[in-house]
């Protein structure tokens, strides 16, 4: 430290000592802080009233909004109820009452079996209704109700003959389960088919892009494929991206992509080796 710097530090120390607050100034400030600490919490009645008013208005708005949505919610609950097995027993009881107890006690299992067989269809149908209800649909609630109704309505109109050989309750349950399984499969198969279509379209784009020299198109398609579909598809798409980067001479990107591919869980080791090899041979 130079002499000048030392002198400046000494001057700073003198300035510090000379500008120390006096006892009076300290007392004044301490008094202010003490008053602040001891002061009771301010409670402004007007502000509290405004807060209360805002809370009331918010609550009322929420209630009004819920009231407008109530029919749709009720409809949704009704459609879900129609699809569930417990409804079967309730509808049987109701039917027995409405039909003037025409069916004998002996015929009850047969009726129940037939009912469950038809309700499986109703379940599938109502699940469809449930799905469409969740989507933004222009169909009014009454239309949806008509679409959900035929299962129980139809049974009543068709008058299932009690003397007809009917399925046992176990068989009916099995049939219901099978029908429900089919419905599940049908539901899950559709998006899978869509995804496959989309993937094949993207691979076609890749081929067209590479054939036509349009690497941008191929890259975009590969990038989409690299983040969708199965692990195998993702790995292959990333391999394609590595190869494109190598062909562009972009070795840093190629290496990064290859390393990313190697870290991809479930990637085919053969594909990983090819990608790493391609990145290793890359020449800028």
């Amino acid at each position, binding site marked *: *430290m130079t002499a*000048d*710097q*030392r*002198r*400046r*530090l000494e*001057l*700073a*120390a*003198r*300035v*510090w*000592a*000379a*500008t120390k*607050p*006096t*006892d009076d*100034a*300290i*007392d004044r*400030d*301490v*008094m*202010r*802080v*003490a008053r*602040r*600490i001891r002061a009771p919490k301010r409670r402004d009645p007007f502000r509290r009233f405004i807060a209360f008013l805002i809370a009331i208005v918010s609550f009322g708005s929420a209630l009004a909004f819920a009231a407008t949505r109530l029919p749709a919610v009720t409809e949704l609950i009704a459609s879900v109820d129609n699809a569930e097995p417990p409804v079967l027993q309730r509808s049987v009881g109701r039917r027995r009452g409405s039909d003037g107890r025409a069916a004998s006690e002996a015929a009850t299992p047969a009726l129940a079996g037939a009912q469950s067989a038809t309700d499986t269809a109703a379940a599938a149908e109502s699940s469809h209704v449930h799905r469409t209800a969740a989507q933004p649909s222009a169909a009014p609630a009454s239309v949806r109700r008509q679409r959900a109704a035929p299962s129980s309505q139809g049974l009543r109109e068709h008058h299932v003959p009690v003397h007809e050989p009917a399925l046992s309750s176990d068989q009916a349950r099995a049939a219901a389960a099978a029908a429900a399984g089919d419905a599940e499969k049908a539901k899950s198969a559709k998006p899978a088919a869509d995804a496959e279509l989309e993937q094949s379209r993207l691979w076609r784009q890749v081929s067209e892009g590479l054939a036509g020299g349009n690497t941008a198109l191929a890259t975009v398609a590969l990038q989409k494929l690299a983040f969708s579909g199965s692990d195998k598809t993702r790995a292959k798409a990333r391999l394609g991206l590595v190869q494109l980067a190598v062909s562009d001479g972009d070795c840093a990107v190629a290496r990064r992509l290859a390393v990313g591919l190697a870290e991809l869980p479930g990637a085919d080791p053969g594909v990983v080796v090819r990608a790493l090899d391609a990145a290793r041979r890359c020449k800028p």
Partner: protein
Amino acid sequence: MLPPISKPLDVPLFTRAADESEVCAASTELLRLLYRQVRTLAGPRPDLDDLVQAAAERALKALPTFERRSAFSTWTYGIAYRTVLDHDRWLSRFRRRFSFAEDADGLDVASASDVEHDAMLAVRARRLHVALETLPPAKRAVIVLHDLEGLALKEVAAVVSANERTVRSRLIDARKKLASILTNDPAFDSEGTP
């Protein structure tokens, strides 16, 4: 009216306070002590009252844990130091997102100029506080406590909860930085004694 300033507060008066008025006097004494210490460490700044209040709350909460292993003022200095440090950390995070409108004018050195009627002194004091503000909080505390307030190294080490070698190292570094800042400051060019 505040009770008169007594001799340095070495033993917590709270333990000896017999009635409410004595507790009140003791807390005022504690507040006065903390005010001085926080002002020393943080400098005159707009949020000094908040800092003092926070430090007082901490001190009153921690009072039962005071073990008398050091002087009471050293113990309160430690509380003031930690309060200022925490506040500075929060403030640095706050300043990453927001800025104060009157940052530059936040220093209140009017009291000094009222007392001394010396404009040069006020300017130098302002510049000194600005220079100290630029130092890291740990180093600023060390140089203020040792070089400007005259505390011994051992006491400074107790306040900042570090060993003496660390304090010495921080002190050397802080001196260098402060000297380099003041070298470029024309207010400290002439020798004119304040």
